[in-house]
């Protein structure tokens, strides 16, 4: 399956790195991890899209779930390194109006540390 991810916690910030294609066939593989991303109050996390070449509405649904959970637990979620085509899908979907993005992982971490 052409999708993979890694999750690590550094200095209290969860970092989820996505690789490959997040589509109807592969999004199931990420669902459980997305659901555990914001388990405790005021959790801070970034999702790094630098390795992601493709996302469809099935993948967008998971990102929306993460954003909702972040809001519910008083936490913060930053999306970073969106490729132009992936960013276009986020823009069409109206997600850029309700989610915070950064151009690099360093910028995302800086925003989360300031939160």
């Amino acid at each position, binding site marked *: 399956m052409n999708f993979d991810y890694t999750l690590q916690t550094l200095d209290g910030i969860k970092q989820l790195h996505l690789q490959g*294609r997040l589509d*109807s066939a592969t999004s199931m593989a990420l669902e459980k991890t997305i659901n555990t991303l914001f388990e405790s109050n005021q959790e801070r996390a970034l999702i790094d899209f630098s390795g992601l070449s493709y996302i469809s509405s099935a993948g967008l649904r998971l990102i929306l779930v993460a954003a909702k959970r972040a809001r519910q637990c008083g936490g913060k979620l930053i999306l970073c390194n969106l490729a132009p085509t992936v960013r276009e899908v986020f823009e069409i*979907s*109206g997600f850029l109006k309700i989610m915070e993005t950064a151009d690099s992982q360093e910028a995302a971490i800086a925003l989360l540390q300031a939160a």
Partner: protein
Amino acid sequence: MSTTAVESDGKRLLLDYVMPSQVRMVESLAEIVEGAIGDRPDLAFSTTICLEELITNTIAHGLGNAPDHSIRVRILRSQEGLEISIKDDAPAFDPFHDAPLPDLDGDIENRTVGGLGLHIVRTLMDEAWASYDGTGNLITLKKNFR
């Protein structure tokens, strides 16, 4: 599958592919589409995402997730752009007519992804419509070259 170029009405056949009605097949379809429109990665991306949204919609809502149907995908290229068609053997079903309009302006708590797939299709394509011919539904998409 045949990818032989055929001239018809000034149109070139880039892809004629029959796939089973299974969501897991969208990934191999994406690779095939990227191979057929390899010279325009931007168009390949738009075509792939629209095909995925419409085919998964057809499988879930038109075919009730039955895995043993066939879906035929054709891509034609003309001077003006791409013409993409999806033919199924499901009962009459118009995804564009029945789709809920997504709420693009709500805040995070109130947002859902319902209708988002078809909204993506309508935004990325210049024309999109569906018809029923007695044997199945034919969805046609047009994407003009800019």
